């Protein structure tokens, strides 16, 4: 009896409701485990309690606390609003922002168990990942993002005041269409910094006045020798031109921002804002599965530790397990609910599997993972992985045969020429490596997203812009969308645009789509 009361005394909470004191006490207990046991390295935390309505607001503006206004966010809002009110869809329990301090939004409707879960998941799991993963370190500036969004929001509002809603909407629509093609994939960008951005914005206006770009010449130059120029000379000119514009350029937004002849300074600035925000989210797209896996692993470890220490009751633990198992549920391919791999499920399974390999390896694990099998340092091993991999490379490195068997993964080969799909590999000795490579490719953004580049500009003639889509394995672009997007490019560019599909293997042009300014006007 006495031990029971004693145990009850230690509990952080006994009812489902929370108040700020229990929230703080719970946070402290979680922090203790996260910092002292898991030795996580996190940004300071800021937990913000919001209502469901505010959660809906945050949802619609791609999860950011501050965002400029655009109709597409309103569209998301009205849709989510319907879904939520009709009960088709719950709201996220939490939203976390990669910023310093790390901001986690928690809903007031959550029970205290849920709040504990959310704090462990977001405020420590995601937070650690944001702070330590190389992609985030390299591409995003957690200190500056909120300032930058504030700047973006007020800048765009100012533009709306000055140039009208329609003009701004036109630019934003076009920029959003190109957002995926607005990231630098390989070179390291400067991190956005408010003071520098403001300064740069002012300088841009000045620069505009002072510089001269051959492209903006209003009278096209006639070149009488054109007909006689031999092939070599022509090629040299192409090379020259490419050097001048830094072609080929895969960052379409960047190219348009810098080189589109007819854009106003403010329009270029808006392109830059969209580009910067796209760039900020780029690491998240590449590490979705790992990031969620890391957060799930962390919350699972912390909640269990809380329970082991007698800080939460069995009832609370049951509630937690209920939420947890729903989050990491993976439907099988023939299930109605199946919609691809659930990043939470795959991520969590992989983290747990690595943990197992470190602590309790089998013969097979020793063979496949000689470096880590049985090293008895699961958390350290995972932290290494979290820091230095992205989804694709992480799967390629760490997906174990056991997990492939557990999830009963199999690989389908889909050749357009064949009337059938073929099972190319399954979870057996012949298939492990193939399955793993295929799954890794599925998580590779550069494979998932089309390979688009600006390849040439006809500066001597009609300023036609040439954009190339390199087709891999005959996978084409979604036609109607590509046409609309091309229209947006034309609108930004101001002159004709040609979209060429080029086969990756042979390099030959498969087909071409042309847009003239007259088309674009319609």
């Amino acid at each position, binding site marked *: 009896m006495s031990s029971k009361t004693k145990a009850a005394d230690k509990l952080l909470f006994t009812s489902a409701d929370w108040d*700020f004191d229990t*929230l703080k006490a719970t*946070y*402290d207990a979680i922090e203790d485990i996260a910092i002292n046991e898991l030795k996580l390295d996190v940004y*300071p935390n800021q937990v*913000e*309690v919001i*209502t469901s309505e*505010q959660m809906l*607001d945050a949802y619609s*503006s791609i999860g950011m606390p501050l965002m400029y*206004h*655009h*109709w*597409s966010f*309103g*569209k998301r809002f*009205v*849709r989510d609003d*319907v879904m939520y009110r009709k009960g088709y869809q719950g709201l996220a329990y939490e939203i976390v922002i990669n910023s310093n301090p790390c901001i986690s939004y928690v809903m007031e409707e959550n029970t205290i168990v849920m709040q504990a879960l959310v704090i462990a998941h977001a405020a420590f799991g995601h937070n650690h990942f944001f702070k330590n993963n190389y992609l985030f370190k390299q591409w995003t500036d957690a200190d500056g993002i909120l300032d930058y969004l504030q700047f973006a929001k007020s800048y765009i509002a100012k533009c709306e005041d000055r140039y009208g*809603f329609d003009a701004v*909407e036109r630019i934003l629509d076009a920029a959003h*269409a190109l*957002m995926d093609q607005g990231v630098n994939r390989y070179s390291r960008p400067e991190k956005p910094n408010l003071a520098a951005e403001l300064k740069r914005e002012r300088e841009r206006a000045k620069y505009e006045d002072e510089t001269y770009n051959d492209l903006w010449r209003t009278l096209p130059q006639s070149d009488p020798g054109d007909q006689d120029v031999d092939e070599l000379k022509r090629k040299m000119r192409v090379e020259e031109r490419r050097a001048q514009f830094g072609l080929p350029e895969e960052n379409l937004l960047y190219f348009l921002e810098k080189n589109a002849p007819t854009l106003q300074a403010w329009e270029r600035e808006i392109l830059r804002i969209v580009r910067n925000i796209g760039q900020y989210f780029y690491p998240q797209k590449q590490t979705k599965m790992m990031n969620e896996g890391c957060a799930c692993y962390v919350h699972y470890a912390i909640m269990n530790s809380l329970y082991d220490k007698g800080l939460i009751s069995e009832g609370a633990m049951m509630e937690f397990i209920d939420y947890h198992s729903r989050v990491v549920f993976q*439907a*099988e*391919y023939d299930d109605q609910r*199946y919609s*691809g791999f659930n990043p939470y499920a795959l991520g969590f399974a992989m983290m747990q599997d690595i943990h197992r390999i470190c602590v309790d390896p089998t013969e097979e694990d020793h063979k496949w993972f000689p470096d880590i099998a049985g090293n008895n340092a699961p958390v350290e091993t995972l932290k290494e992985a979290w820091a230095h991999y992205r989804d694709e490379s992480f799967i390629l490195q760490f997906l174990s045969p056991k997990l492939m068997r557990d999830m*009963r*993964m199999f*690989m*389908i*080969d*889909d050749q*357009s020429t064949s*009337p*059938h*799909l073929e*099972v190319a*590999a399954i*979870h*057996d000795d012949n298939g492990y490596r193939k*399955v793993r490579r*295929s799954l890794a490719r*599925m998580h590779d953004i550069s494979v998932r*997203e*089309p390979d*688009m580049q600006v390849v040439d500009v006809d500066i001597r003639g009609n300023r036609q812009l040439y954009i190339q*889509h390199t087709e891999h*394995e*005959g*996978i*084409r*672009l*979604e*036609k109607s*969308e*590509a046409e609309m*997007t091309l229209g947006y490019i034309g609108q930004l560019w101001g002159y004709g645009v040609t979209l060429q599909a080029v086969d990756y293997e042979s390099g030959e042009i498969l087909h071409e789509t042309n847009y003239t300014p007259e088309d674009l006007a319609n």
Partner: protein
Amino acid sequence: MLYIVDRRKNPTGKSLGNRQRFMRRAKAQIKKAVESTIRSRGITDISGGDQITIPGKTLKEPGFHHMGRGGNRNYVLPGNKKFVQGDRIARPQGGDSGAGGSQASPDGEGEDEFQFTLTRDEFLDIFFEDLELPDLLKKSLKQTTAFRTTRAGFSVEGTPSNLSLVRTMRNSLARRIGLRRPKSAEVRELEEKISALQAKAEKRPNGKLTKADDETLHTLLADLEEAKRRMKAIPFIDPIDTRFNQFQQIPDPNTQAVMFCLMDVSGSMSEQMKELAKRFFMLLHLFLHRKYEHVEVVFIRHTSRAAEVDEETFFYSRETGGTIVSTALEEMKKVLKDRYPTDQWNIYAAQASDGDNYSNDGAKCTALLAEDLLPKCQYYAYIEITDEREAEIFAAAEGETALWKAYAPLAATHPQFALKRVTKAADIFPVFRELFAKNRAEATR
């Protein structure tokens, strides 16, 4: 380190700007959807916004994406049951569930329709865009709220006519007591005593008082002087005493309206004509509902007799007989008198007819309208529904029906009376807009 911030008190509706931009973007489609919703509902049930489905085309956010199928690709699926390497599977038909894993976005093809909920206000605002009730001179153009004046305590400032005597005098009295201002009775008493002593002195042979009396007289005179000085220094009513009654304008919502639907249901009115009438009534009801919290509808149908009926009967049951319009007007007058006193109700009426009337009834109708009904109505609309073919045939003759002839002069003298012709469904809305056009008030003035 932890900061907990309670954001729940922050203003909500952060997405309002986005929502408005969205509505602006989809305006044309939303309007269309709203109009079709209206067509399919009963008169009084068009109260809410509800679900609107609009084509997703203009709301599309395109981008460069791979096609969901085609080309050579491979992907991994979970949950293998029975496959071994080399198995062949028939291509799944239709859906691309098999390719789910390798496909970037699910909203490429499927998003042809976009469904969402309009709030009631948005719904109605869209519907009544640039429409305004014509003549609300009586209750002010913008709001139908009347004001009532109520007392609202006292203030230290105000116009003399609002001076609160009781409060002011009470303050004055308190101040006078507090500062010990001599009462006029006390001064009078002193004066009396002095004059008594002076009279006494005159009676004496030497004209002088006794020494004791003389001293008294001196004290009294000094007292009197002091009292007068104080009276002068301390005013009877000081500006700080004054209090004024304060009044406040309390909105006295006159938020109920009654709408009379009058219709000729005699044999000459075809189903199609009634359908047209129904749409007109519907629109009127909707419009009123936007303006007033509470709207009642009275349906009066008539042939050669008139009766108040329910909506179902009004639209869908048939009667035979002649046409005497004045019976309906009489009925309306009676209902008005019995149930809807003008000081509590805003009264609107809409009459639909094919224009037939018993030949001697016109004058009676005009008189009833001019004398009894129109002065009480905010608005009275008469729509004449003519058959499409007839309209063409009689176009030259301006289609002067008996009722039109009788009513036409009224429009000139009564700004709240309007009459219009409608021949087909497409006419309803334009006619309605014209009837209620914003500038009508100016035009008729």
